[in-house]
């Protein structure tokens, strides 16, 4: 059966639906750029919800001031993607991204001057820049060493309130743990996503609130795993706080977890209403650079899709997402066949010790670009003027050890979209429609 090919013509095609892809789309639609975004949105579910800018500079240094860290990075690792953008761009990128999330129903705190110290499900502390408003209470409670109760649920694996308490009690003596049975889920294994959805039902909230009240004791604030609703979690939380009579906060569970799923569902709902063409579950099969346009081909269960774009941002991530491929003989970029900078042989990919403070060389492999994040060809010039790359696929960074995943994604997407705008203006493609970010945000 041959189905008719569906065709889309856009100014920008964003390939990839991780944070970098979503950020690029947000920046693009805010600037009036006609955009299509393709890629499995599952990747974004890996985020804890915490948006890191930069948490760790060198081997042993967790950063309190990420901005100072960025300035040091510019001196020590000038090729790092975060060293190639200005501080003003980074701030603008976070502000614009967070404003969009907040407006769309998943409120976030603003990026500040300092990293905040956020809780992890193991009871360790992670420096990050922006947290969802439902998690801010945990940051504050930790800072104030408040009288605090952490609650977990029987059957919810990998989240133990006792663990959080055991690992923090030394510096936070007024921390206490309780285990509860989740209403309606008395037996068997619990899944955070299911719990979150059931807390959108008032009766479930009331029952859970009653159970929490029973064990409240003298606690001034209560921490829960991140299960407070899937849509508009701040409203679910406010309602629970009213019922319990104490402020609450969420602690992320192990990914893929609710905070990431919230973002995914929100993007899938909001983007189409903003005029963006989102093709969420597919992969681009081929990219062809024709004279008049870049042609992307893919297929879904309804048949083939062709996208004709003036510019492309490649935000396909690393190994986990398929943006890079590690094989027996080396690392490649499978979609376009871009050169990948990498250690000379497989022997050099990993150091001997897993937790070696220096991190593993394989993580700094990736795509090398010019200042506008245009990938370079083997000869050294831009591979194609119309092609840009953003996010973790970029070379010369170790986002895991640097605690800078969202930072790289947002900052590189910001600069790349800016360059896309200039490229479109230059080629005359859609100069008339191109608005400034400020122009859009006044609306």
């Amino acid at each position, binding site marked *: 059966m041959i189905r008719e090919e569906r065709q889309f013509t856009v100014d920008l095609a964003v390939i990839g639906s991780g944070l970098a892809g979503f950020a690029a789309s947000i920046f693009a639609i805010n600037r009036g750029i006609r955009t299509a975004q393709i890629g499995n949105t599952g990747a974004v579910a890996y985020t804890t919800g915490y948006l890191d800018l930069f948490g760790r500079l060198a081997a042993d240094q967790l950063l309190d001031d990420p901005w100072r860290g960025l300035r040091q990075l510019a001196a020590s690792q000038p090729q790092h993607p975060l060293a190639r953008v200005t501080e003003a761009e980074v701030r603008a990128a976070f502000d614009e991204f967070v404003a969009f999330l907040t407006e769309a129903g998943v409120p976030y705190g603003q990026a500040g001057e300092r990293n905040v110290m956020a809780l992890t499900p*193991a009871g360790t502390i992670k420096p990050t820049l922006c947290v969802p408003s439902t998690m801010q209470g945990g940051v504050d409670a930790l800072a104030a060493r408040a009288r605090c109760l952490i609650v977990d649920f029987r059957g919810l694996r990998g989240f133990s309130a006792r663990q959080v308490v055991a690992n923090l009690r030394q510096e936070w003596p007024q921390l206490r743990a309780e285990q509860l049975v989740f209403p309606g889920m008395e037996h068997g294994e619990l899944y955070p996503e299911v719990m979150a959805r059931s807390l959108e039902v008032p009766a479930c909230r009331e029952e859970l609130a009653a159970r929490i009240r029973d064990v409240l004791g003298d606690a001034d604030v209560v921490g829960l795993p991140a299960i407070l609703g899937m849509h508009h979690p701040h409203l679910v939380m406010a309602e629970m706080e009213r019922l319990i009579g104490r402020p609450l906060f969420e602690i992320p569970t192990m990914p893929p977890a609710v905070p990431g799923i919230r973002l995914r569902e929100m993007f899938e709902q909001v983007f189409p209403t903003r005029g963006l063409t989102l093709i969420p579950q597919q992969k681009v099969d081929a990219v062809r650079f024709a004279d008049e346009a870049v042609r992307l081909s893919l297929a879904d269960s309804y048949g083939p899709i062709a996208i004709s774009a003036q510019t492309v941002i490649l935000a396909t991530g690393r190994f986990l997402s398929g943006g890079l491929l590690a094989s027996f003989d080396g690392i490649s970029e499978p979609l376009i066949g871009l050169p990948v900078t990498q250690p000379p042989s497989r022997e050099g990919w990993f150091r001997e010790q897993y937790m070696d403070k220096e991190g593993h060389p394989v993580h700094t492999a990736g795509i090398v670009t010019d200042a506008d994040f245009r990938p370079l060809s083997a000869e050294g010039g831009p591979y194609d003027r119309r092609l840009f790359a953003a996010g973790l696929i970029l070379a010369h960074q170790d986002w895991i050890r640097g605690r800078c995943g969202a930072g790289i994604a947002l900052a590189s997407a910001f600069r790349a979209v800016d360059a896309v705008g200039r490229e479109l203006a230059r080629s005359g493609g859609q100069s008339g429609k191109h608005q400034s970010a400020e122009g859009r945000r006044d609306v």
Partner: protein
Amino acid sequence: MMATLPPRSGPTRPTASLETEVLIIGGGATGAGIMRDLALRGIHSLLIDKKDLCAGASGGNHGLLHSGGRYVFSDPQSAIECREEGHILKRVLPQCIEQTGGLFVAVDGDDEGFAADFAGLCAAAGIACTPLLPAEARELEPALSERVVAAYQVPDATIDPFRLALENVNQARLVNGSIYRPHTEVVAFEKSGDVIVSALCRDNRSGETVRIVAQQFVNAGGAWAMDIARLAGCDDVRLLYSKGTLLVTHDRMIRRVINRLRPPADGDILVPGGTVSILGTTSLRTDALNAVQPTVDEINRNIREGMAMVPALAHARYIRAFSRVRPLLQAGGGADDRQATRGFALIDHHSQGIANLCTITGGKLTTYRLMAEKTADLVAARIGNTAPCRTAVDIVPDGEACRWTEPGAAPKLWYRAGDPDDTILCECEMVPQSAIDQIVRCAPGAEAEMTLEAIALRSRAGKGPCQGSFCGIRIASHLYDRGYYRDRTGLLHMRDFFNERFKGQRAVIWGQQMAQMELAEALHCGLLGLDCLDSPSETVTEGEAQS
């Protein structure tokens, strides 16, 4: 390795003292077998290992219960021992053995004379051997290469060395209260005349020195036997070392053991084991005994050679690789390390002026019971015990807490019990929390606090494609929940466990395993910060300044 390992040095003043009839040094298959053998003769023993059960060659081999076929050319005596022992073990230790059968195959280009002699040599050693047409062999094992030119079927089997050690120790414990003590390393002997009075041992977790007083001392140190004998002043154990590297595939690619029908070389054995298969091995002379790790070159060689028998090995997904050292008994000028050195040696140290120490080393997993019997005969004679050896006739009972190492056992038992509250903690291998609870409560070694590595050794946890990166987190959190961990120890154990698992992954990370590894590191380091546990966290000081 533990986080708080004190610097290596000589023994400090002993802070504890233990007493037993026989001290057995080395918790491999051999030491565990000796412990059982002595217990069945009514002799009390204490078994120690500087790490834990199967930390040496016993935990890093193919798990092949040799029919003997592999040795018919080079060492007919070993071939006969393998046949006899295989027979016995299949009867007394069935819970550890899968009777897979095995094939010997020659491929196009292999020495045909070698292949032609095989059946006759097997017959001479009493090993059942059926010739097959190449097409018949491929019908039995579809993964075999089109290039197979000769094939024979033999009664090879596979054996789970972890369960073997656990069951031996467990029975000894039940029979006469013999004791197993992990993380206890002999560092010196105290002698009086021609008698060793006690062994000074370092507890590698606390750093303390323990004095162990015994009548008889058995050195079952495997590749470390020469070092241990030297601590007692004995120079008559002479070993060379050969490093072997093995790879574990994600899938079980064959049903039977596949051996290459040619003089032993790299990548010529593929052994099925539960849901995986194990390819190996290389053989490299080495001087290093500790911290031997697989290299990329060894991995490449094994795969290249193995492909000749089973072409799918070229594109298989590998989840792990490991290396161990074989002790080679130094005997007159053998050229090839794989030849003529697989026999074992029992050394009584009389010539060294010591009356109550013996050393057992070399040999094979397949002959561990026989090695234990010979050793126990000597020890029993020395203390005047005349009870006969019973290990060839007495069936080893099924230890409740020992069964979790068997692939597929955990899901089967879990399903049968049908308790919805018994959540699965390790999804790759379906290990439920009840298994973990039982292991920390009563598996051999549970007397002391268990690490995640110790739990993994006693179960299938961490052996699947994720190599423990998820279940390590879940098991730790479960143990916090149970109150087993009450402070940051659980975090340190998690970190050490992931570090340890990584050693076996490092050389085979490509393809899907790279994605797996990236996710693991994002969780362990990016999210949980296990790479910064010792770092001064600006965090806390900052918070305190505010409050």
